[in-house]
């Protein structure tokens, strides 16, 4: 099945040929599609800088890196300079990385295939993103391997110049951007300071901002426990405060995330508010200690939507937009390890801090249920605190189980609505399984917890709790029931006498799954075109004749007693038909045309009889 294209946002194009790229067009595409906002230019520059420092550290162990950002000038002269003391570029590097766009990304892919990659960035594309905020990029660079210092000047139309500088710079790279008028707010010192912290909070070397003659070490407070999350346990207040600064939410709880290899880890902050199942998961992920994504979705298992995480890793490969990771085996492994860490955090709570866990479940029941469905052990651990809607109200499962009764459950809200009144009148314990995961959890419960019985309840099965009418007594109603059955036949329904509560409820209509499908087919068929009606007709002929619904006549009800004890060829069928449509209305079923007609005619007829009885009486008098 193909999705409506107007709803498909990401389409994959295919092309086997090489094409000429219009660079200004490409930049448009970059800013609108690849990157979520122009502000990512700073992230890209930071990534290039940290890549360069990583490379130099590999060549010179013990080397101390540093990133400096300087803001100078105002108005049209407002300029940002980003400098690193990393490996720098030789003239050959410049040609390789900058002359051919996308080159560096190919290298990245190759490196991935080779198993290891120490560069985050695709240098050229990263630099290009700067055209979203600047009409010119100037880069001065000196390679640590020697050679002359170089200057590269690029314009958004794709032209650039390279020249050798006469002076010798110290190794590293400086990038100068002159801001365009509509990008001025990305160059404001306060904004830049926050952004640098945001991207570089975890970097193991200083990030320094100069502006208005003031120098500020942006990431001086990168905490040691972040790299060894187990140590975070004893520092609750500090960890929560750091989470608030970086993620912008007032958290009250967290779970440390660790993996066996130690190459990925972090902190999972428990969201302080309930989350919708379809809400985007947005975890903050640092690759090589540099922020790579603020909305990574696929790094944690699906069920883990109750946390917002701060994660660092050096083993995953980002996608082109660098906001997610490539879905591969490595990611799967990391995801399941992080999931295990979360699960373990919850398990520890279940064991020793049940109050803390209960508080969490009250807020994030859906997330807990999502995990419980997949993981029986976890379900066994937390089942008693999971909330369900039932005929005894909105209760925790432990409370519902405490009476030792069979737990009946429906699979849809519709089924529950049909029967919950009657079921609770018979004091049956029924759980509404129409909410996501609930019926699955109910079905699984006996396998997970000992001495609990659960049973799926179909609407037509609610009658099993009714009292049977003894055969001898039933025999008295034989004629009335025959009349009733033949009146109901055209609705594919049959009558049954039972005793049930409440006594003022004369009749109850129930239908099996097949008869429910049949009803739906008939209803649609009435409204549809001739062609589709006939198609639906052939489909209903394929449904077994078991598709009969039932009208339960309540022997405890005085009107029903009168109907049953005084059969009348003329009156009984009409009374039964009226009781039938009454039951439909009581059950909030949508009626078909035939049923509406019965209702209309019935009302008129009863008015007529009522009036006639009245005049007859007057005549007598």
């Amino acid at each position: 099945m193909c999705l409506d294209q107007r709803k498909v946002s990401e389409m994959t194009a295919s092309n086997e040929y090489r094409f000429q790229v219009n660079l200004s067009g490409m930049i448009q595409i970059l800013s609108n599609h690849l990157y979520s906002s122009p502000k990512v230019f700073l992230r890209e520059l930071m990534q290039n800088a940290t890549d360069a420092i990583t490379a130099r550290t590999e060549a010179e162990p013990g080397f101390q890196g540093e990133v400096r950002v300087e803001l100078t000038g105002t108005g049209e002269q407002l300029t940002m300079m980003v400098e690193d003391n990393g490996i720098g570029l030789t003239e050959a590097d410049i040609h390789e990385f900058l002359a051919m766009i996308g080159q560096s990304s190919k290298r990245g892919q190759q490196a991935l295939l080779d198993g290891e990659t120490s560069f985050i960035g695709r240098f050229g594309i990263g630099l290009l993103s700067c055209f979203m905020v600047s009409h010119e990029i100037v880069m001065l660079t000196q390679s640590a391997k020697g050679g002359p210092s170089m200057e590269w000047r690029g314009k958004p139309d794709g032209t650039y110049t390279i020249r050798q500088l006469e002076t010798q710079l110290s190794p590293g790279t400086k990038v100068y951007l002159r801001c365009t008028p509509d990008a001025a707010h990305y160059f404001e010192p306060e904004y830049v300071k926050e952004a640098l912290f945001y991207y570089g909070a975890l970097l193991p070397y200083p990030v320094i901002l100069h502006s208005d003659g003031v120098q500020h070490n942006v990431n001086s407070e990168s905490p040691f426990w972040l790299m060894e999350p187990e140590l975070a346990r004893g520092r609750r207040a500090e960890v929560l405060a750091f989470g608030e600064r970086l993620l912008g939410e007032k958290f009250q709880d967290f779970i440390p995330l660790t993996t066996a290899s130690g190459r990925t880890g972090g902190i999972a902050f428990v969201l302080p508010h309930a989350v919708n199942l379809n809400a985007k998961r947005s975890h903050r992920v640092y690759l090589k200690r540099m922020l790579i994504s603020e909305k990574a979705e696929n790094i944690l298992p699906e069920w883990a939507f109750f946390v917002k995480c701060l994660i660092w890793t050096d083993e995953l490969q980002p996608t082109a937009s660098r906001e997610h990771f490539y879905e591969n085996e490595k990611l799967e492994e990391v995801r399941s390890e992080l999931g295990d860490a979360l699960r373990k955090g919850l398990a520890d709570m279940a064991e020793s801090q049940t109050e803390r866990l209960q508080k969490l479940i009250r807020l994030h029941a859906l997330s807990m249920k999502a995990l419980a469905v997949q993981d029986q052990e976890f379900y066994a651990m937390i089942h008693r605190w999971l909330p369900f809607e039932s005929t005894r109200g909105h209760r925790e499962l432990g409370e519902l189980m405490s009476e030792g009764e069979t737990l009946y459950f429906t699979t849809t809200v519709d089924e529950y609505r049909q029967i919950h009144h009657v079921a609770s009148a018979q004091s049956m314990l029924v759980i509404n399984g129409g909410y996501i995961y609930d019926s699955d959890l109910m079905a699984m419960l006996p396998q997970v917890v000992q001495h609990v019985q659960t049973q799926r309840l179909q609407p037509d099965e609610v009658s099993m709790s009714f009292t049977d009418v003894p055969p001898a007594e039933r025999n008295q109603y034989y004629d009335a029931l025959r009349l009733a059955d033949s009146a109901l036949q055209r609705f594919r329904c049959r009558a049954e006498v039972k005793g049930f509560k409440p006594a003022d409820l004369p009749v109850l209509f129930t239908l099996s799954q097949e008869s429910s499908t049949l009803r739906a087919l008939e209803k649609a068929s009435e409204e549809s075109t001739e062609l589709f009606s006939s198609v639906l007709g052939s489909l209903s002929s394929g449904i077994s004749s078991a598709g009969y619904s039932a009208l339960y006549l309540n022997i405890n009800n005085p009107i029903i007693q009168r109907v049953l004890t005084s059969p009348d060829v003329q009156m009984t069928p009409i009374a039964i038909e009226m009781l039938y449509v009454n039951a439909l209305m009581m059950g909030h079923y949508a009626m078909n045309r035939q049923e509406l007609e019965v209702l209309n005619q019935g009302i008129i007829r009863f008015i007529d009889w009522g009036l006639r009885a009245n005049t007859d009486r007057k005549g007598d008098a």
Partner: protein
Amino acid sequence: MKTEMDFEDLMDEAYGLPNGTAKLGMLEEAARVADVNGMEEEAYEARSEIVETATFCGYPMKALIAFSWQLGKFDQQPERYDEETLMWSYKWILGELSSFPEVSRDKMMELLEDFGRRFKSFGYSERSYWYYRFRISMDLGDLEEAGTSYTKFRSMDRDFMSDCEACEQDEIMRYWILVGEDEKVLEAAKPILKGRMSCAEIPHLTLSEILMPLYRLGKINEADKHQAKGYRMIKGHNDFVQSFAEQMDYLARTNPAKGIDVLEENIVLAMDHEDPFAKMMFYARAAQLLRRWADESPGYRLRLPASFPYEGDPGDLPKLADYFAAYAKAAADKYDQRNGNQHVSSMLSEV
């Protein structure tokens, strides 16, 4: 206690859920509330959502019922509703209808003409008509007719009502599978396998369809890779029951133990499935797999869902295989009768 939710609550609840049975239940309840209260536009809106949700989570009957209602309402007051969404839904319905053997061959053709006439009346490209003619002909086993329609639709221009390229490519691949040209299957699959074409259900479907052609060509390593990746994408999803069948078909020959995992993990989806064709294929391949597994691991007790309607001993694999095979063959007979050929039963020749 909140038991009677109103229309807006139900729709909000539904929009907050991923595609699945729970979402469908909420939407159906919303449609019922709208019906009972005479809110026709709301009832139409809920049904639009039902059609899409049901289509993408394996409930073709529910989709058809909701769509039929919508089409009737639309014809009465076309100015009141959006025709593009409805016509897009028509494609889904048309693509699924042949799975119901009760719908006769004549009816199928009549529906196709109705579809074509409507598309023409809205000024959409005729390509969609020919593309669906191609698909329906394949379903009915008219491979020659499918070939003609294939040539025809490929020569026409796409428009915004055309299925996406990935979906089309997958159908083209299916055509080469049906005519038995495995080399051409691989060729057609190439852009999908290379990741150049993809959509909501592609490559999910492709990665299972390609397994048997690769097997027949002796490319087991490649097939194994696709099998693992494909299964990861579809596991536990109700709308890929036919893909599980394809996986079992392949695994029965190469790795029956893994095949048994696929069977046990997904039988619960197949047993209540609304698409009788997908269910038939699942049961057929399950039978083949169980026979193979009985040889390899006699005495194994298959884990069946508690509600599975099989009275016999789950440890008697040959008997269980017969049970699955009997169901599949009975279903295939119905298709053969409707199609007037042996197209479907010949797919099950090894069962």
